[in-house]
């Protein structure tokens, strides 16, 4: 008899998580929990200024503190050719500043001591003299003719521009606009935000002189990329580097890049020949590590009077900070911004993008996002909202007119991606029904008569998850595929390893479910291991919702290789020809004689004790998976809000999410991802952002200024599902981790704008802080979130 798939923890089981067993006992193993014998501790001294020349650094005071073992400055790093390191976007980034500091919080020196308190004492005893330079805090200022040059370290860098980039069909789009009945225009800023996992970054470098081996425990979402990067930067052979990513206290893209702290801890371990631990504090994390967003949009939609979109123009100006260190596929300068409008039938579009340096922290990471798709979908849905309003058309109806239909797939998007599956209108209908859209207009009108401001905001989108295919997606030439290795032990138990790296997604639970689905081995009999480059097979890591689309597919494929070999063994055991052997979950049997069978466990035992003549013994394999396309989940998010006209405070009355991420491996975990994503969407719409004053001081350098929603503010969410299997993924799954963060913000903002529609206000930049909403209500003007620049007194 075939096994009951849910009972063995296969596909579709809301299997409780394996990793929870240690986390609920406080037995997680995060990097700061690791203690090595003789370990020293490192602290970083950071620049208090955004832009300044370093006149002098006096470290003698630090050396005088008892217990200080080493002090590093830029000069010492330069002597070892380590003052600068390459970024993931073909730029360079300072490890320790030599010539000048280019953002507040930049690393200036570091102290290694017997304990972290002493290391901090050492940092305080360092005296740095700065000569301040004018700081640049936004792209307008950066591109001004007389703007001071931030990257004077680079030859051939005459201004603060990093790139001009374009994609799409300019001429075709111009023609579409010439034929339009109505052109809708809107400008906005997607503010800088920080992924801010509760655990900040950290590393323990342990260089063993006797073996020449460097082991680094590190908060990284992509250990194999880090191994390659460390090998290149530190000139240590790759086989002599072992990166171990232990339990991660969240990542959200923040733990993808290589940070100066990692490099310094490695050098410090080499110099002291002792393990060196660096644990970043929250402030260091917020002011110096990978942020997300910070993009300005000018958007135009050309339409016919009946609502049909004819073409779209977008121009973005993006603020990358002092170093271009975006973590994204190298081919695309502004990430996958051109995935915008993928869910709509838009005949033609054109995007131009300009990236600039400013005196702000570098980063541009994919914060719960596939490389700027968060901005792309937010801009798209804000443009759609404004376009519908400009036409005087209902928001839902306007989307219905333009959404790609179920029988249109595969469908080329206006910027050239290929979407392959979905039931967009069905998702929209479910969402509208759940929120009570039909009755809302009347409810809104009646409320308004009583002085209450209600609004509904819709956001519909499909986004490209699971980079990538190797034709198009690489980071610095490294193709973005993944692998899995599966070993079945003789008793039918197994260990699975992948090159992905869980940081809360629950891989230890769900990967085992995929194997259970493919082989019928109960998920409880399968151990999943990730994060150690000496044992895990190669992978590009976990970010951009790529684990299930890529590594998850590799897990299915390696299981199928195992099953193919097991089938041969089964034929041998059953004394039947292989063609006559049938498979049902967990066992092979002879066609026509279902009771004559052997279990997968019996095949495993035979692989080590009774293989047919000429067969290689054992039952293990690996698989590399290069996806043929991205996966395209669809989502419809609808928020209903009430704005308090007296204070500008807005509350979420009802939030509905309809997600189609294809086949759900573990529905409980999928729902957990969606609720977490919606909360980050709510955070960005409502309170969470990093801005700067005119001197380049970071506003948002700790959790007292950088506001994250608590259980008290966060609304409840109503979840619905639609399942359209991905046609090319082995088990039909699509990415899901980031959908709600990507599509959610526009639902909240569109809802508030709907509540304010009578005022004529078209846009308030996120976050929709009470004072911004109140300003808009009282003045009737749009509210910009662009950081202000210094004006001459």
């Amino acid at each position: 008899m075939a096994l009951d798939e849910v009972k063995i923890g296969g596909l579709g089981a809301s299997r409780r998580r394996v990793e929870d067993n240690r986390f609920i006992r406080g037995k997680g193993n995060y990097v700061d929990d690791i203690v090595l014998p003789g370990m020293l501790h490192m602290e970083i001294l950071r620049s208090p200024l955004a832009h300044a020349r370093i006149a002098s650094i006096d470290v003698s005071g630090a050396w005088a503190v008892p217990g200080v073992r080493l002090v590093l400055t830029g000069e010492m790093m330069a002597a070892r050719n380590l003052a600068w390191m390459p970024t993931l976007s073909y730029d360079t980034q300072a490890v320790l500043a030599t010539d000048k500091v280019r953002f507040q919080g930049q690393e200036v020196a570091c102290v290694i001591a017997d304990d972290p308190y002493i290391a901090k004492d050492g940092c305080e005893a360092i005296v740095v003299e700065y000569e301040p330079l004018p700081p640049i805090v936004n792209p307008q200022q950066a591109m001004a003719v007389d703007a001071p040059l931030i990257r004077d370290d680079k030859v051939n860098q005459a201004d603060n521009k990093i790139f001009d980039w374009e994609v799409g069909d300019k001429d075709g789009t111009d023609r579409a606009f010439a034929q339009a009945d109505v052109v809708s225009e809107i400008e906005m800023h997607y503010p800088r935000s920080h992924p801010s996992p509760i655990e900040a970054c950290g590393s323990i470098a342990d260089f063993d002189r006797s073996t020449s081996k460097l082991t680094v425990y590190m908060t990284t979402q992509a250990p194999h990329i880090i191994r390659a990067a460390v090998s290149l930067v530190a000139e240590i052979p790759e086989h002599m580097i072992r990166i171990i990513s232990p339990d991660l206290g969240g990542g959200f893209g923040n733990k993808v890049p290589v940070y100066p702290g990692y490099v310094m801890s490695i050098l410090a371990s080499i110099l002291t020949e002792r393990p060196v631990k660096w644990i970043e504090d929250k402030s260091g994390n917020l002011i110096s590590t990978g942020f997300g967003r910070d993009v300005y949009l000018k958007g135009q939609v050309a339409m016919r009077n009946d609502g049909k979109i004819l073409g779209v123009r977008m121009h973005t100006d993006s603020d990358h900070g002092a170093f271009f260190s975006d973590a994204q596929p190298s081919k695309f300068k502004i990430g996958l911004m051109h995935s915008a409008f993928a869910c709509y039938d838009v005949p033609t579009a054109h995007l131009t993008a300009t990236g600039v340096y400013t005196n702000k922290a570098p980063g541009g990471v994919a914060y719960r996002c596939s490389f700027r798709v968060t901005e792309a979908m937010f801009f798209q849905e804000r443009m759609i909202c404004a376009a519908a309003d400009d036409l005087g058309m209902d928001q839902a109806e306007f989307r219905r007119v333009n959404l790609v239909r179920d029988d249109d797939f595969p469908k080329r998007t206006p910027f050239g991606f290929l979407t392959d599956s979905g039931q967009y209108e069905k998702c929209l209908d479910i969402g509208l029904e759940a929120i009570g859209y039909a009755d809302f207009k009347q409810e809104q009108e009646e409320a308004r008569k009583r002085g209450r401001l209600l609004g509904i905001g819709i956001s519909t989108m499909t986004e490209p998850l699971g980079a990538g295919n190797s034709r198009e997606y690489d980071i610095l030439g490294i193709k973005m595929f993944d692998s899995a290795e599966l070993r079945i032990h003789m008793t039918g138990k197994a260990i699975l390893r992948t090159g992905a790296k869980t940081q809360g997604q629950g891989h230890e639970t769900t990967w085992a479910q995929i194997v259970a689905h493919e082989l019928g081995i109960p998920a409880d009999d399968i151990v999943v291991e990730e994060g150690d480059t000496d044992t895990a097979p190669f992978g590009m890591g976990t970010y951009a919702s790529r684990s299930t689309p890529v590594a998850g597919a590799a897990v299915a494929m390696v299981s199928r290789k195992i099953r193919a070999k097991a089938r041969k063994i089964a034929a041998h055991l059953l004394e039947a020809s292989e063609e006559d052997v049938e498979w049902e979950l967990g066992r092979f049997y002879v066609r026509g004689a279902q009771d004559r069978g052997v279990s997968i466990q019996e095949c495993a035992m035979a692989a080590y004790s009774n293989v047919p003549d000429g067969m290689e013994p054992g039952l293990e394999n690996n698989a590399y998976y290069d996806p043929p396309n991205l996966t395209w989940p669809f989502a419809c998010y609808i928020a209903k809000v009430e704005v308090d006209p007296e204070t500008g405070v807005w509350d979420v009355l009802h939030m509905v999410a309809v997600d189609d991420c294809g086949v759900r491996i573990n529905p409980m975990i999928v729902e957990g991802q969606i609720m977490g994503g919606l909360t980050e969407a709510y955070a960005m719409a409502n309170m969470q952002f990093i801005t700067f004053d005119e001197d380049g001081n970071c506003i948002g350098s700790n959790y007292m200024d950088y506001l994250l929603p608590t259980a008290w503010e966060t609304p409840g969410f109503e979840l619905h599902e639609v399942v359209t299997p991905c046609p090319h993924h082995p088990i039909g799954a699509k990415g899901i981790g980031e959908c709600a963060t990507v599509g959610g913000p526009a639902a909240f903002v569109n809802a508030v704008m709907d509540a304010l529609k009578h005022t004529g206000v078209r846009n308030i930049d996120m976050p929709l802080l009470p004072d911004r909403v109140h300003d808009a209500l009282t003045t009737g003007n749009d509210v910009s979130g662009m950081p202000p620049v210094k004006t001459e007194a």
Partner: protein
Amino acid sequence: MTLFEEVPVTTTREIPVRRVQMRVNGETRAANIEPRLLLAHLLRNGLQLTGTHTGCDTTNCGACTVLFDGQPVKSCTMFAVQADGHEITTVEGLATASELHPIQEGFKDEHGLQCGFCTPGMMLSAKALLEENPNPTEDEVRWALSGNLCRCTGYQNIVKAVLWAAEKMRGYTPASDDAADGGGEA
């Protein structure tokens, strides 16, 4: 276990040490420490109770929450010397050798955690609530947890986990869907 244990904690030469003694998870522990040592660091580095996490250093995130004479406090903003003579409970003190605390069971059953970093603090705040209020409303749970930040879950399942635990602690069997209780024994 030992009734009294000397805990090694690094000190610098110039700062006079203070001797402290406290009950941690029911055991008496003592140490010579610098007055500036934070309670979180004594627990983590001195007593090797690494389930108490430090997240933000500014008393906002609550990852370092422990119970101080039964009340939740943020141990990253408290000097260890202030705990002299007091009773501390950390996440390691929640389960007995053979049994999980219902709050721990609830967090697993209701998927109240993802990366697990905020979980110990969340569970201790929840414990303090349920000891004072065995039958809280959803709003009361949300308010009681509002000093603990989570970036992964969106709180909805954390709230459900606490309500699940409350029900179990009141002697009922909380509802749970019939999906495979994977992950081996809890």
